[in-house]
């Protein structure tokens, strides 16, 4: 089977997977599409949204659909890094035992690692995750453990700020996307969510998602995909302009209200962030049945890949919620291609 046919077959699988998730978690099509992109581009995902809008359900459905070994941990203020690596208990004979914790339990077949309420965990836990996410390995019991297939899904709610720890910039940068989950707005969807008993029992709903068993082949697929999808010099120039615009938006004519533009940003997008952007853009081009990346691919994922990587000057940081989306929109509206 040649590579192109293989990619076509995979695409059908991916689209079918997306349809299935959309049937399970309704009204969140854009978020589902972004998660699919992140999964096939092998990037970690951070979900942010209000309470009860379906963040956890969505991630569980995706994990169930992908297959692979799944682990989940809830972020709490007293969670320590050791809790992820091992746990100790007394066995039936009353002898103390040490067993691998959630991260190590499945060894190198650990697939989806779901960190619920990540901002409730302390910075020490974030630090452990840094390495696990970036290098896909951790050191425990005097040796390195590798997780070639690990994909971290994390979520946090934006309502509460008490007893939470803001994710450090380095941890945020390791997530490919930060996806905002908003409540569905269509009345029919809301009606369905309220009255259809199918959505009342989450466990049953998730159990209905077919395990596609594709998970452990994703790395290979992603590699092929990244090699096959082409990017032209003009697209390189466009991506470069976008990147520069995240550092000096004023040079591209981006102007925000009541802001001194040269003092707006403390840091723009990182090289890792841009490489994630291109990986996700290639995956989108593939899902859109193309063998080359277009500017619209970059534009479609630019907000989810970039918003959490731009750090505003503390002077204007209190207006973050308003300024960042405006800045992203301004950049996309001002940078031309070709």
């Amino acid at each position, binding site marked *: 089977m040649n590579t192109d046919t293989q990619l076509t077959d995979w695409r059908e699988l991916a689209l079918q997977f997306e349809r299935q998730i959309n049937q399970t978690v309704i009204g969140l099509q854009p978020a589902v599409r972004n998660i699919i992109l992140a999964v096939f581009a092998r990037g970690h995902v951070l979900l942010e949204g209000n309470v009860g809008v379906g963040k956890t359900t969505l991630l569980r459905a995706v994990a169930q659909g992908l297959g692979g070994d799944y682990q989940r941990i809830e972020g709490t203020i007293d969670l320590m890094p050791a809790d992820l690596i091992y746990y100790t208990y007394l066995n039936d004979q009353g002898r103390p035992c040490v067993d691998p914790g959630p991260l190590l339990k499945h060894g190198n077949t650990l697939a989806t690692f779901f960190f619920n309420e990540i901002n409730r965990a302390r910075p020490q836990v974030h630090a452990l995750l840094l390495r696990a996410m970036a290098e896909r390995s951790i050191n425990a019991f005097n040796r390195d453990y590798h997780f070639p297939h690990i994909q971290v899904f994390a979520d946090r709610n934006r309502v509460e700020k008490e007893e939470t720890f803001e994710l450090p910039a380095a941890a945020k940068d390791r997530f490919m996307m930060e996806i905002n989950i908003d409540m569905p707005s269509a009345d029919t969807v809301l009606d369905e969510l309220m009255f259809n008993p199918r959505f009342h029992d989450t466990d049953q709903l998730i159990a209905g998602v077919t395990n596609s068993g594709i998970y452990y082949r994703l790395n290979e697929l992603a590699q092929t995909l990244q090699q096959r999808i*082409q*990017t*032209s010099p*003009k*697209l390189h120039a466009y991506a470069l302009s976008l990147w520069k615009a995240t550092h000096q938006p004023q040079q591209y004519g981006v102007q925000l209200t009541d802001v001194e533009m040269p003092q707006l940003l403390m840091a723009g997008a990182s090289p890792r962030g841009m490489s994630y952007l291109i990986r996700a853009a290639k995956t989108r081009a593939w899902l859109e049945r*193309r*063998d*080359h*990346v*277009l*500017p*619209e691919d970059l*534009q479609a994922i630019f907000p989810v890949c970039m918003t959490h990587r731009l750090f505003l000057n503390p002077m204007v940081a209190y207006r973050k919620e308003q300024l960042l989306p405006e800045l992203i929109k301004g950049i996309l*509206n*001002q*940078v*031309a*291609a*070709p």
Partner: protein
Amino acid sequence: MRIVLILVLSLLGCSGSIDEPVSYFNVETPRPFGYVIGDEIPQRIVIETRSGISLQPGSLPAKGQINRWLNLNQVTVKQSGRRYQIDLRYQVFYAPLAVKSLTLPGFTVQFSQGEKSIGQSVPAWTFTLSPLRELVARQTEQGEYMRPDSPPSLLANTQTLYGLAASLSVAALIAAYLSYLYGCFPDRLRRTLFKQALRKLAGLSKSDMEQALTLVHRVLNSLNGQPLFHNRLSQFYRRNPQYLQVSSRLDWFFNYSNRYFFSDGMIVVTQDLQQLKDLCEQCRKIERGSQ
């Protein structure tokens, strides 16, 4: 006895002056000669009275015609304490044939003290009025004898006119610049976008396809006010609905440009450039408003 007599006599001497109701009276008039028809003659009457005495304004002559040739134009009374200053302004309309003596009529100014009325007469005033010209108007070599004054020569105002013109043009320039800043002329500028593009396209050949496509992209970007991409065409049509009629051509353009710039193995044929020119022709018609 003699002392008493002296006292009574001296008191009698004082009593007269104390009883006078008007302590000061004067009529100030100008020269009594050299007036001609139409001249105004001012007359000022200054009166000082004892306290408790007030002027009756009704006793003054009324403004308006006094007699056939005399008019009273203005009557002003100024009072400061017990002092009254009455200003009268007469105008004569008598046309004498020779120098003639005329008289401003006298009148009596009335004052009241409680229920008592006191009069102070203002005497008549005589003056002479002269004719404007001789009895028989004569003809002279210099033209009409009875003629108006020669008109005064006008002041030089060329400098002021130049100054006005200069400041008006500066004001107009500033107004134009301001309206440009406020975006009042974009339509005018945008109405020639495709005209310029067509002119530049005419000089390009098949091998300059990249340049040609970039040119059309730039024009569309300027028309849109921001970069225009294929997926934002619907917003573009909402702002510029007249371009909906070339939507299929614009779709072709964006697909073609995407293939040309972002994918490999694109072979350019001459028809493509022609098609691009056709698109610009159509858009030019739309921007001129002829379609």
